[in-house]
């Protein structure tokens, strides 16, 4: 199949490109990029004047819940949500049932993913067996089976000794160690950010230092081992400073932020009347943290944006704030939120946003895509910067509805995705 995308504004930070031109895709690859490409015989042409074409967007932090928690999400529903949200690839975390801590689970996820051609699926393997933080998982076998990183996400690796060994051993397979950084003793029974709002509502708090302390420890271990470290959902000003300092010293360190930590604060917990859709971990932080994160995005310390798409069944979230599970969905809101609040909002250029949502994720995790250079995988996202959307969780293709962004009116939306040269129909 050959597809010619004609007349779009093509934004590809991997080759410093941002201009109106044409793109020819064939046999799953980018064949030609340039002005006035002729449509030969049998070429399907899409006229895209006024639209934006980018390398396929990649969300490196999602929970697809399969196997074991199919009432929350499946690989099929999660990848359909990804496609609807403008993503051509997702990485899925290991906290399934059973945990993805051995090659047979990885192979199962990949074989399920092959049956549904909505988006590429990159499994993340566990760091420790059963996410228990006691023994290393079979990281070599996981790597051979196809994981692109290892993480006990949802749970931090608490033991410094085990973290040291994981950072060291994973070097054999060139896998990043992906950490949910949280000192569990400091976070205790907390359910939201510890600060003036948790104080006023009498909710137990998770202090920012719970993240900072763990990041500081981890960075010392990265220095010792020479390992690769990726910090998930960075949420505090202080841990951003720690990452910046570590990068300055040449450590192999990367980090991600989520749209919700960029756009909301702990005040949302109060304003929403303690809606459980404002409960996630790490929690929504205070305004000074949020502003620091926006700065970190603009000045390049932050490597990428990821949604931490964490679907839960409505019955699980429709309960007391303290009892509700942590997490919100993000696959179908991330792109519009970023286009409206970050690009139209003047925080970032469109090119920088695409770098954060496509090029950098591909580089950090060694994935296909992230570029429209000739010979690259023909994974493409088409955006309409003028589209007006109102977020309606009831219309999500994800099985879950747990979003704090319902009712938000946003300008800019994903239109279509193209996966390996084929239009995706989510």
């Amino acid at each position, binding site marked *: 199949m050959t597809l010619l995308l004609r007349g779009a504004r093509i934004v590809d930070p991997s080759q410093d490109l941002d201009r109106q031109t044409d793109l020819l895709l064939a046999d799953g690859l980018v064949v030609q990029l340039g002005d006035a490409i002729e449509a030969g015989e049998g070429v399907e042409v899409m006229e895209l004047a006024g639209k934006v074409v980018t390398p396929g967007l990649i969300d490196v932090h999602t929970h697809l819940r399969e196997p074991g928690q199919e009432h929350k999400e499946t690989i099929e529903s999660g990848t359909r949500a990804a496609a609807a949200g403008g993503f051509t690839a997702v990485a899925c975390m290991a906290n399934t049932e059973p945990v993805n801590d051995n090659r047979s689970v990885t192979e199962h996820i990949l074989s399920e993913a092959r049956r549904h051609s909505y988006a590429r699926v990159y499994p993340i393997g566990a760091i420790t067996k059963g996410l228990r933080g006691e023994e290393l998982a079979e990281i070599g076998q996981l790597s051979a089976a196809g994981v692109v990183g290892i993480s006990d996400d949802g749970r931090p690796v608490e033991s410094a000794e085990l973290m040291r060994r994981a950072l060291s051993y994973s070097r054999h397979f060139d896998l990043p160690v992906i950490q949910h950084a949280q000192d569990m003793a400091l976070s205790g029974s907390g359910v939201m950010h*510890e*600060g*003036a*709002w*948790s*104080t*006023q*509502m*009498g*909710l137990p*708090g998770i*202090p920012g230092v719970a993240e900072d302390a763990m990041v500081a420890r981890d960075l010392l271990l990265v220095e010792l081992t020479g390992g690769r470290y990726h910090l998930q959902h960075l949420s505090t000003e202080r841990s951003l400073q720690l990452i910046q300092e570590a990068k300055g010293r040449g450590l192999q360190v990367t980090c991600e932020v989520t749209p919700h930590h960029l756009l909301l604060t702990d005040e949302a917990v109060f304003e929403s*009347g*303690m809606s459980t859709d404002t409960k996630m971990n790490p929690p929504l932080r205070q305004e000074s943290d949020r502003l620091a994160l926006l700065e970190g995005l603009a000045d390049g310390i932050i490597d990428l944006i990821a949604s931490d798409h964490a679907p839960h069944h409505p*019955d699980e979230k*429709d*309960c*007391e*704030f*303290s*009892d509700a599970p942590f997490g919100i969905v993000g696959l179908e809101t991330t792109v519009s939120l970023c286009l409206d609040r970050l690009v139209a909002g003047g925080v970032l250029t469109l090119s920088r946003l695409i770098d954060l949502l496509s090029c950098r994720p591909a580089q950090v995790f060694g994935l296909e895509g992230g570029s429209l250079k000739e010979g690259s995988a023909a994974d493409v996202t088409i955006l309409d910067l003028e589209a007006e959307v109102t977020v309606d969780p009831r219309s999500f293709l994800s099985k879950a509805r747990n979003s704090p962004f319902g009712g938000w009116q946003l300008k800019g939306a994903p239109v279509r995705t193209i996966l390996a040269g084929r239009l995706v129909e989510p």
Partner: protein
Amino acid sequence: MPDTAWQAKDLLTIRGLEKGQVELILDTAESFREVASRPIKKVPSLRGRTLLGLFFEPSTRTSSSFEIAAKRLSADWVSFSSASSSLAKGESLIDTARNLEAMAPDLVVVRHGHPGVPRMLAERLGCSVVNAGDGAHEHPTQALLDAFTIRRSKGRLEGLEVAIIGDIEHSRVARSNIHLLLLMGARVTVAGPRPMMPLGIEQMGVEVAFSTEDAVRDADVVMMLRLQLERHGATRFPSLREYFEVFALTEKRLAGAKDDVIILHPGPMNRGVEIASEVADGPYSVILEQVANGVAVRMAVLYLLTLRREEGE
């Protein structure tokens, strides 16, 4: 039965109330107070009304106070405690709410260990909901009865210096009192051990002190809080003995307060922990008056909400 001047469906928090609403409750409580001194302690105001008490957390004092208040108003009072509720059988709170709704109560009083639960129920129930304490969030009727007690003693709330001392972090009583006292024009100082002083408390508009002496200096009112032993791990303070030695309200520490200072405590008291017996039983103590006033204030709340004027009428 005439409609009351009250309009709001629920009483969930002190935050958000207006001065006039607080005054209406306190004035109404004043008129119910003498019922306790009658030989037959009953008025017919809520005859035929069904009031439900839902106590998802152990409560003796508050649940008894609400029950007596309801019965003195001639209401039919039914109460569930966590041990006998279906919550123990795994029913979700939402389903519990739906089942309650089906029994058509006029008002539900709810106590729960988690902040926000009364509000959750209020959003789902057509009847009135009264918060009888939700975690460390709020306990509005306690603050109202404290204000009632202070007003009866001092004749006013405005301009008073009030010290609230103890385990501020875990205290819903402190939070409701802070909102109410500031609303009514009092000044509030909170004090307690630093590990129990929650972050950002000063953003509620209070002064913060870290010794009992500093907090009570020139105080008109001292409110001691119960040390919530059941909510603490061993990381907040080393021992009860040390707590008493460093923070408890004793005669000596009270010396800097105004001569006519009054002492409140929401109970139950830990004698010899946060308060010395000589103070609890001393001449400034209004602790038992608080308990008596609690019934009158809760009568006022049940009466006003049950017979509220529908908005727009």
